[in-house]
């Protein structure tokens, strides 16, 4: 389990810790794309796989 001061952290907290912009990232958690509305209530656990793709503008 990913822990911060003994507490498992949510995806929202993880995103804040990494200083990522929620509007410009895609989060895949255990193979499933998670919309921002569920990040707060989704806790990260040790065996989880998380893929975060971050975008910058230009094209």
């Amino acid at each position, binding site marked *: 389990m990913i822990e911060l001061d003994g507490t498992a952290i949510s995806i929202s907290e993880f995103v804040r810790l990494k200083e990522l*912009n929620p509007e*410009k990232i*895609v989060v895949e958690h255990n193979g499933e794309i998670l919309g921002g509305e569920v990040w707060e209530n989704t806790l990260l656990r040790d065996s989880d796989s998380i*893929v975060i*793709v*971050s*975008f*910058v503008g230009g*094209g």
Partner: protein
Amino acid sequence: MNNFREELLACLGKEAFEKLGKIKTGIAGAGGLGSNCAAFLVRSGFRKLKIYDFDKVSYSNLNRQFYFYDQVGHWKVDALRVNLSRIDPDLELETFNERVTNANVSGAFADCDIVIEAFDRAENKKMLTEAYMNSGKLYISASGIAGCGDSDNITIKKIHDKFFLIGDGVSEASAALPPFAPRVNIAAAKEADIALSWALRKGTAQHG
């Protein structure tokens, strides 16, 4: 069959030529990435493209996009249709002069085998990626292509078997770091090359 296709057939062989003719590729955005990627795909033998863009050609686009001085003011999808048809006059092109939004994103490319993300804004890249990165289609996106120099840092990251991300990940377009033709074309060419190599190998055991 037109003369260009005769040459493509001779170059590719019958099997590859026919594969490329069956694959429908969706292109989201017809700016620097999308317009150039579309041209690379057509030159390579792709014949079915579905393209979305809501914008008009402007003079500021001519430093990198596949449009010409006399097309300024034209809708990009219309100008691109003209330009691609000058390479292969018999393409099956579906062009949509509209925005891809949360309301239509899942249907926009539902009938495509390949989806290429070629938007400008990061928020739109996110929207399309959420819709297509796990769709079972080949999905190719780009992030970090502005500026000039260090073009070897425009890399290809394989996120999944069918999700590739092109770019350096950090070079965001801005007034201080404008996009230029060379790096934008490198990224567009890499997007097209991934699509081409996947399409030509499609159906074999190792690439599925």
